[in-house]
């Protein structure tokens, strides 16, 4: 039993060491704007992806959007939607269906020529999507 533990520990360490192949990837920057879609809790999002350093639009990538609620990781995650690219290079569109209104962290997963992930937190309400403001807690009013 003890040797089994040792073997697993060695395997895990080897796995970790092999992961350290240093190869810098191009960083991506994404601008997201979402609007309510035809049905409740559906939102159409437009994402503009560019190289973070050169601001050159990144085209031809596979972009999937996942969403998770910050307040409970993993529990409310939404099935990722694959985005389609516009003829306009670097612009992608996707429709996401959320579970409820509120703050969601959108995970924009890029793969293909560039592999990256950008996270944007937005507040999704019935008639608009805006910046997520940290929740206002009930508290004593100031006069």
């Amino acid at each position: 039993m003890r040797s089994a533990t040792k073997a697993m520990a060695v395997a895990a360490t080897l796995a970790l060491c092999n992961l350290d192949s240093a190869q810098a990837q191009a960083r991506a920057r994404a601008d997201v704007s979402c609007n309510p879609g035809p049905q409740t809790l559906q939102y159409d999002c437009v994402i503009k992806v560019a190289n973070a350093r050169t601001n050159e639009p990144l085209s031809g990538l596979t972009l999937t959007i996942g969403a998770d609620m910050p307040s409970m990781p993993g529990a409310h995650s939404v099935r990722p939607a694959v985005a389609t690219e516009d003829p306009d290079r670097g612009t992608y569109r996707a429709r996401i269906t959320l579970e409820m209104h509120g703050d969601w962290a959108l995970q924009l997963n890029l793969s293909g020529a560039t592999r990256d992930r950008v996270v944007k937190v937005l507040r999704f309400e019935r008639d608009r999507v805006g910046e997520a403001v940290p929740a206002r807690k009930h508290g004593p009013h100031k006069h």
Partner: protein
Amino acid sequence: MIDLVQNTIDGVMIGSSYGLLALGFTLIFGVMRKLNLSYGPSIMIGGYLGTVLYLQYGAGLLAVAGAVVVGAVITGIYVERLCFAPMKAGAGIASMVSSFAIWMQLEQVAILILPRHTYAFPALATGLPLEFWSLLVRIDHLIVLCCALGLAAAVQLMLYRTRFGLGLRAIVGNPVAAHLVGINVQMAVLLAFAGASAIGGVAGFLVLAVDQQITPMFGMWATLKGLIAMMIGGLGSVPGAVLGGLLLGVLEAHSQWYFGPHIRDLVAYLVLFAFLVLRPGGLLGGAPETTTPLKA
């Protein structure tokens, strides 16, 4: 100097709502020795019902208050029947985790009733605050304070001057012996739960009416504040609940004034932690019982 007094007054005012929340909490905990994590959410359901009445039917203040209390009581009884009644005596954590599962359920029910993040809630009392030598006191805050003190006195009277209260105290002391003496423990616990939920409903209504809005965060907030106030004041003690609430309110008011909302919350938890480590019985409780509450 004026600031100090003003903040203390503000603190006492908000603290009275904490005290009310703690009152209901302490009734349940004192009788059952089990922690009900659905306490805040049950009140929130009541609050949502009241909001629906207000927004869809334009109901008046008293009707809304009634709806909140009724909603809280019905939900409270639901929680008691599902999470606490069927459990055997020692399964404290199972009840607690079960109440947590129902907390999640209730939160989703609330969002289904009213999907948006914020809704307006009728105001308790509009009008200019009263002025005493350049100190401001809001009328609605004053109403809350009076309700808190009144209800606390009523509960204390009930516990120590009525047969029902005697029965409850007997159950707290030794449930088996109480049963043997002929007290219907199940019914008494159910009634205590209902009563605690009703008090919670009143507390919730008052807080919402002062705040004039309701959000889905209310449930957790109410549970946490009630819990902190109860622990500071002393588990199972009615005057302790009120005192704990007031102290919490005052500390929060001062911290917020000088350091902002983050520090305010930090101080609340720090004080709680300090009390637990140094004086777990709280302000008015004795040393924690040798029979540990809520064993794993």
